[in-house]
């Protein structure tokens, strides 16, 4: 059975993140980088420039004047949003293809990831008053391990999916049984290679950890909440099957029920905006 490291190494040989994505991630992590450096990188990718201008001119930013210059757009959007924009673009390509009837659906997984990202960002902003960019990235990327497994050990993954029963076990446990590792470990390693922030790495590793009580407001806890909501709405990777909400989060939701109701009320609008923004397949 392959280890998580072996899977990640093989996968990295097959598929790499676009050059632009890697350079931008590096810039975000570098204290000495300036907007000018970002500008230089973005200029290289015309698709990215289009997306960036679309984003900055969307109702999300609500600017009065249309922004048409790259440097201005970069300043408005900010480094992290820029990184997310690139991540979404890069991952969408990874999520494409490999569609078969009796197997794992990458399309479902993509819709799941995008939904989780949007809900998680809303929760982070509205309930915990956090800037939602890192949470959004975690949402987009948290299940990337499943793509790696589908690419390299597709049949084993499919049998793990078959064995998964939310009332008895978790998908991660079934993967451990069938593959020898799980998508949390694999995803964590891959994201580490892409030099994503530590909080994001941690959330990828722990998002199926239902035993422990994670601190409220941490990316992990927000991710778990968003996964539950997405599952309830029918957007889980395996439709109809998703992990129940851990007890500590049940208590939390009950105590802030009105807050969550408001979020649920506004969610359709937000999803429509995001679809417009990222051209996701939601």
């Amino acid at each position, binding site marked *: 059975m392959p280890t998580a490291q072996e899977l990640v190494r093989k996968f990295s040989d097959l598929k790499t993140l676009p050059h632009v994505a890697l350079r931008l991630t590096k810039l975000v992590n570098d204290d000495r980088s300036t907007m000018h450096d970002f500008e230089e990188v973005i200029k290289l990718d015309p698709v990215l420039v289009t997306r960036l201008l679309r984003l900055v001119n969307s109702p999300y930013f609500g600017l009065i004047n249309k922004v048409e210059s790259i440097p201005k757009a970069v300043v408005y959007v900010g480094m992290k949003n820029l990184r997310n924009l690139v991540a979404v673009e890069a991952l969408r390509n990874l999520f494409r293809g490999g569609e078969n009837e009796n197997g794992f659906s990458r399309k479902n997984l993509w819709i799941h990831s995008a939904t989780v990202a949007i809900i998680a960002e809303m929760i982070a*902003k509205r309930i915990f*008053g956090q800037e939602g960019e890192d949470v959004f990235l975690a949402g987009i990327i948290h299940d990337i391990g499943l793509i790696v497994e589908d690419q390299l050990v597709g049949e084993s993954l499919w049998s793990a999916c078959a064995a998964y029963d939310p009332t008895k076990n978790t998908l991660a446990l079934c993967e451990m049984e069938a593959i020898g590792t799980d998508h949390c470990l694999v995803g964590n390693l891959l994201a580490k290679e892409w030099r994503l922030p530590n909080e994001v790495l941690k959330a990828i590793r722990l998002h199926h950890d239902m035993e422990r009580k994670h601190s409220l407001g941490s990316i992990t806890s927000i991710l778990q909440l968003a996964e539950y*909501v997405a599952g*309830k709405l*029918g957007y889980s990777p395996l439709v109809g099957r998703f992990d129940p909400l851990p007890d500590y989060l049940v208590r939390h939701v009950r105590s802030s029920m009105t*807050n969550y109701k408001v979020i*649920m*009320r506004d*969610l359709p609008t937000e999803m429509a905006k995001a679809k417009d923004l990222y051209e996701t397949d939601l």
Partner: protein
Amino acid sequence: MTGVEFENVFDDLLDGDEELKAFYQVLREQVPQAFIQLHGDNGVVLPEVVDQPCSSEGVAQLLEKTHAAGGKPVAEQGQDGEWCYGLRVDKVSAVLLFSLPGRTGNLLAESHGRELLQGVIDYALLQQEQQLLQIENEQIYRQIGVLKQKHTALIEDNFRQYRLIQDKEKEYARTLESEIARQTAELRNTNARLEEASRLQSEFLANMSHELRTPMNAIIGFSDLLLELKLDKESREYAQTIKNAGMNLLVLINDILDLAKIEAGRIELDNSPFDLRETVDNVANLFRIPAREKKLTFVVEIAPELPALLYGDNNRLRQILINLVGNAMKFTAAGEVAITIGLQDLTSERAQVVFTVRDSGIGIPPERQQAIFDKFTQADGSTTRKYGGTGLGLAICHQLVQLMGGSISVKSVEGQGSSFYFTLPLKVARPETVVVARPEQGRDAENIPAEAQPARSALRVLLVEDNPVNQRLASIIIKKQGCELAVAGDGIEALVQLEKHVFDLVLMDVQMPNMDGLEATRRIRKIEASAGTRAQYACLRNRTKPLSIIGLTAHARKEDEQSCYGAGMNGFLTKPIIRARLEAVLVEEADGCAAQGRPPEPAG
């Protein structure tokens, strides 16, 4: 949407009676004195601790009546006479039962009583809505908080980037400065090296001209002397051939050195006033006799309005003209050779002078007309075999004309002749303000008045010369003039001679070992200047005017001429020694001495 509706997502997590409890709580606060009971559709009854508004039978009856009323409030009077009321509240999916203890009238019988009841219930419901709005408000405030944080972060980041960019710019400026400094130093070095190389080259040129002219001096000089002896016809022919070959070689050497000097940028043009007519006449005179011999018509036309005096390098201009006319003569077998000096433009300040040298010679094929101004190029290879020449003459003319700020060109028809034109911009000189420089009596032997008279009285000459061959040659020429002669091998020997003997003239070679001619001349002038030291020198003590010192130098450069005069010489002769010129100098000196009266030979 395949799953649960958005608003029902969290239903699993709810007991279902939270809303009802909240509603009860508000009512309780509003009307604390009333008995209140809520009967939810899901079977829940609030409060759990019974707070009955009426008897159990009454409750069941009232509930039934309320359901039947379809949303309208109903009232029922209990056995104790108190009124109990029932009302369906759809918003919370429950029926509200209540009574007001101590009150006997039917609230619903009066209209304002009904309104009051409805108002209380509406108020309780609105309280719930308000809570929702409040939460919404809180969420909005949190998001505003996030935006504020981002705003602050953006400002901080902006400042950080500003500092970073400043640092980067400073660093860039520093590297730029150091890079510029490095390159400047490098350029300076290169420049110094080039200057040194150029100095060495120029030195080499000077030495070469010395080294080349010295043997030529011997060859030409001795073949000249040889020709004066009684020789049989064959020997005379051989001697004449040696002399001619030597003269040709000398011309070639001079051409090559000239060209090298021009190309090394070593040529310095003179800019003194001169009489252009005189220069042209001078050149023409050189060619009149050869033209007559070849039966060619020789024409000189000078525009009458040509200014009397112009600024320029007379000697170089002469060189160009001699070259062009020489070529015309060489390549013309019959017909004419003409020199025309015209004016293209004339103001009081400047004259644009057009020089034309025209011949009716063999002409130049069109495709070769440009190439002839290149080095070592003649009209074609056979020209060299037939007419001789180095092919350097026109290249030198071309370069010199360019240096003078003009241009040269040629028009030619093969078999009919060629015309060479060049135009020079020359400044007009005012006759009253200038002293006219006479054309230098250069290296053209023909130009020297050949009828030099033998010296009338025996001139006492000291020849200072290190090269034995040159010593001999000069000695013979001088003695033939009837002069008395002493020879010194270098400057030191010369000074010794001057101490002991009286001389009228010193011929001083410039380049010598131990003490060169310039240094020796300076010493002599110094001795002359001081009465004390002068007395020790037999030659100098009784002189009324400075001793004549004529330099002999193979270095024909302008700066060499200047350094001769600078050291105190009265004149100079270039080597190889041209017999006629040397003789002329000797005659002149002898005349001078005769006029002045000669200082006597010291006694003893």
